[in-house]
């Protein structure tokens, strides 16, 4: 069995306890975990979908700018964090499962584990009034 790094396992544990949405990706950008609050953003249940390739979760998330135009993957904080290996922060709009358009602030950081291994990245979302 290909083992998830313990830093990723513990990050998932943290995310599962949070009341704010969180995404966790592996070094390739695959969405390997999203918590219950994030399920309502995606309109999907983690137990149903399991892990998702980056192209899939970016398409389903449908982040957009104020004018409604879709944000390209490379402009999304989580994709920047994992591809460029640096923290990224931005605000954008999404249309959640309930149909309401919401403005979200997102902060994403690479997860650097023991031995300076980059084992993934974590994004936290905050709904802006």
């Amino acid at each position, binding site marked *: *069995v*290909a*083992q*998830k790094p*313990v830093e990723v*396992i*513990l990050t*998932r544990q943290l995310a599962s306890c949070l009341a704010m949405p969180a995404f966790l990706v592996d070094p390739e950008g695959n969405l390997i975990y999203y918590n219950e609050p994030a399920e309502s953003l995606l309109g999907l249940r983690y137990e149903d979908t399991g892990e998702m390739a980056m192209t899939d979760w970016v398409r389903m998330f449908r982040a957009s700018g104020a004018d409604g135009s879709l944000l390209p993957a490379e402009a999304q904080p989580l994709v920047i964090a994992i591809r460029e290996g640096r923290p990224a922060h931005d605000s954008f709009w999404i249309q959640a499962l309930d149909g309401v358009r919401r403005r979200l602030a997102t902060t994403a950081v690479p997860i650097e584990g*023991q031995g300076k*291994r980059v084992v993934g990245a974590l994004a936290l979302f905050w709904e802006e009034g």
Partner: protein
Amino acid sequence: MRIVLWGTRGSLASPGSDTAGYGGNTACVQVHGAPDECVLVLDAGTGIRALGIALCEEERPVHVLLSHLHLDHIQGLGFFAPLFQSGPTSGAPLPCDLTLHDTPLAEFVIDGYRLRADLICHPGPTVGYRIERDGRSMAYLSDHEIALGPDLERTSSDWLSGFSLAEGVDLLVHDAQYTEEEYAERVGWGHSSIAHTIAFGRRAAPGKLVTFHHDPSHTDSVLDRLHLEMAAMAGGLEVAPGYEGAVFELW
């Protein structure tokens, strides 16, 4: 491989007449093969003192593999006699021929033993080890809070800390410090309940599971009772309580 337990107690050495059966010394496990080959020593708890005395009668390389730097796993180093025997670098602060390494988080080889270390759930950087030789294998996860992660019963094995180290080994030495009631009061302290260890063992399917890192407060009579309960919940899993002096042969 021949595996000898020299210290099985967790957290704090607990000598006394009421712990003499399972032993009061903290973590130390010897792994060795033929008499003229090297010795691997897993952790340097107080159990390493007696091992060191035994090794002084022999002249063979000793490789100490630490799981982490908590006191109960290093406290015996200062009393490990081979460190104070003369070697080629006599005149150095320690007279022995001593080399220190960081544990690689990848497979490595020591004198015919294939080893793999991986980080496992425990406060501070902590590794477990898998050791293989001649088609036989053992895993050592002395301090491991397996339940501090996704649901142990429902999650896929790749999300279980330590699983790839333990999967299918002939012998699994694993933390089993607490009862269920004790664990409920000590979540996040870095150790497993006996029930969690059994559940992990049933997933990893070792040939034999040996419980380890017994709580200092667990006397022989308490451990006897807990191990009877453990046997009842083990199903088809072969489980043995770890005690000082226990020997396991993997040939």
